[in-house]
């Protein structure tokens, strides 16, 4: 691999990716989407678990007061 030499890809050539833009950019966009989903869903899972634990605690406290 490698063409050798230090070449900086910028400007129109950067966005067109040498004619492969329709393959390259969707890959990077989908990657961002998957990484963001991972963070969002993990956080949602944690928050839901915390809420369930809080409810269990509240239920246990209420049961204790009734007795």
């Amino acid at each position, binding site marked *: *691999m490698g063409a*050798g030499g230090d070449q900086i890809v910028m400007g129109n050539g950067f966005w067109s990716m040498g004619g492969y833009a329709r393959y390259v950019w969707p890959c990077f966009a989908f990657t961002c989407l998957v990484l963001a989903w991972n963070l969002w869903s993990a956080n949602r899972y944690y928050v839901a678990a*915390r809420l369930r634990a809080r409810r269990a605690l509240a239920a246990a406290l209420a049961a204790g007061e009734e007795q």
Partner: protein
Amino acid sequence: MWTWFYKLASPPYVYGAAAALTPWFLGLAAITMGYGLVAGLVFAPPDYQQGDAFRIIYVHAPSAWMSLFAYTSMAIAGGIALIWRIKMGHAVAAASAPIGASFTLLALFTGSLWGRPMWGTYWAWDPRLTSELILLFLYVGVMSLRSAFEDPARGDRAAALLGLVGLVNVPIIHYSVLWWNSLHQGATVAKLGKPSMPGSMLWPLLSMLLGFMLFYGAVLCVRLRGEVLNRERQAKWVREAIKS
């Protein structure tokens, strides 16, 4: 050494350690992935055969590596839980599965988009691609099996067993390009001592790999905290922890 191992079996310790590690993992992941993206997309030269399409490697290879790493971690954690009856092993395995599945999907998607301009097709029933697809099915199977039982402990054990059986697929994926005729290119980085890439292409790739690993660590920690809370809901320490 065993003290450290036993600490990992303690839910409050795992919960606290995961909370402390998450920001470090996330911060370092952002730095390494930021460097990898800029160096890979802007400064790395185009490949002499594939042109700029080769830049897909910066997301494809790390996601493919992580799909194997997450599966191996999941299977080992499940195995530890089965052998030593350490509940936290099942929690780690359960937390790892969805992350690994998403990386596998990402590897298949980016590989498919890379394959179209290079091979002329989005998909071929090639040994590497097929074994990676089987990995995705294994992840889905493990996650489904875990939630298929009314008794969570039985679900954990069944999922750990399937995870261990499926571990046989990991070396098959890795060596498929050597064992069979494959459209997929051989190893470029893993050739010890002499990777077939120049440094300007290799360093961003290694940085992206490190970034993906750190990101996996961060997401695993967040999911693990949720798993621990779900499993230890009735424990006294959880009540103390969520009160604060």
